[in-house]
């Protein structure tokens, strides 16, 4: 799933640049802040992404995968309580 090196295709590769949304920039900053403070490293980030159900992984964008992993790893470590993010978002 995560180490396949791409699927065979005859479709052209989209090489166009695109702007990142604010939430994507914040996600990048969050992951680096977590690493700098010793809460989560890049290998844990990768493991969290690899733990995604395959269909969810395929649907998610690059930074959506990062967010999934941050929530997974921080919940595992007890930094976040289970359901804490959902509860905050519901307010």
């Amino acid at each position: 799933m995560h180490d396949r090196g791409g699927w065979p295709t005859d479709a052209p590769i989209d090489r166009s640049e695109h702007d990142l949304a604010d939430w994507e920039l914040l996600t990048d900053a969050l992951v680096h802040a977590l690493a700098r403070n010793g809460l989560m490293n890049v290998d844990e980030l990768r493991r969290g992404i690899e733990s995604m159900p395959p269909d969810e992984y395929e649907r998610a964008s690059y930074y959506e995968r990062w967010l999934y992993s941050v929530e997974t790893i921080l919940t595992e470590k007890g930094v976040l309580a289970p359901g804490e993010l959902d509860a905050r978002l519901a307010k």
Partner: protein
Amino acid sequence: MTFQAGQRVRVAARAHEGHHRTPAYVKGKSGRVERIHGAFTNPETRAYGGDGLPEQRLYLVGFDPSDLWPGSGGQTRDRVQVDIYEHWLEDAG
């Protein structure tokens, strides 16, 4: 075992549950050491809260694409280059 630039190596074909940085499509395949990056902490333990020590040597290994994906030949100047940790490599003479 330490490897030198230019040396033929084979990637171990073993299964490995959990996070690791060796792509499935190079397992069991042979290539050539193109560069020695140095030694780095081991992602296989660091991904689970470990300190990643002892550090493992990391190599840039180049593969002929047709060795990885049969039928992909015809563009023989292409190389597939993968960073692979030493404990995944064996001498391939």
